[in-house]
């Protein structure tokens, strides 16, 4: 597997993480923030897979499995929060949620 240098894998992973972080920070629609979070997590997963392939160990893949579990739980809770916010505020704008009082 020396055909793909690990550095190039890490560059692609870093690009994906940057795109995801860009989306989380700049988009104000909650659904897009969740989508960007998925892109970000996939960038991290790609870095783990690249490292696991570099050292020929299954640890990287096992960790990506845990990342997927975390992403599934995060999406479930995030979408439930999203529905609740939509029901209460009738808006999907994260900036509409500027008060902490109940």
């Amino acid at each position, binding site marked *: 597997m020396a055909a793909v240098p690990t550095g190039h894998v890490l560059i692609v992973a870093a690009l994906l993480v940057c795109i995801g972080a860009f989306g989380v920070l700049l*988009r104000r629609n909650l*659904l897009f923030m969740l*989508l960007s979070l998925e892109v970000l997590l996939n960038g991290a997963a790609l870095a783990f897979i690249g490292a696991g392939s570099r050292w020929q160990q299954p640890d990287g893949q096992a960790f990506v499995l845990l990342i997927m579990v975390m992403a599934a739980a995060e*999406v479930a809770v995030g979408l*439930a929060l999203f529905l609740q916010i939509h029901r209460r505020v009738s808006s999907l704008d994260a900036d509409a949620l500027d008060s902490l009082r*109940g």
Partner: protein
Amino acid sequence: MSAVFYVASAIAVVAAFLAVTRSNALHAVLWLLVALFAIAVDFLVLGAPFLAALEVIVYAGAIVVVILFVMMMVAGPTASRGQERRWLPPRAWILPSLLAAGLAAVTMIWLAGAGGPAAAGTVIGARQVGMLLFSDWLVAVELASVLLLAGLVGALYLSSRSEGPARTNGRRPQPRRPWPDADGRGGASD
């Protein structure tokens, strides 16, 4: 083999960028789907066929479908045929389809050729990952299952039609009934 990686990575980065910057959520999900497929091909090239399959099944299958499901719930029940057609004009789905078809073509050529993943010799399959997960990483697997249970309970609780306990405005908090009444109103109304 590395050419497949670079093509798939380019498609992944472009599709991810477009997914993040679209204004229409449905188009963004289409682009996210293309990006996830491209990342799955990246996993395959890097010798992780098990994780590539899981990426397609869990991410592109389950998670994207759940996001679409919630999006359709929020969009309301007024989705007539004309509105659906307005949501998805041909220019919205032709470009993602072309990119996905290109990705599939590159992958098929790679898999059908002599230098497929079996020839790479460094594939780490599901067997090794499973052996590691259920020996050294057993505690992590248990923690992951607890996390999934917590996600399930949290999603169930949050998506019930109840007002939060903070909405009582100084009154004594009512005993909460998170399930809707028979007439559809939420429990613990205030």
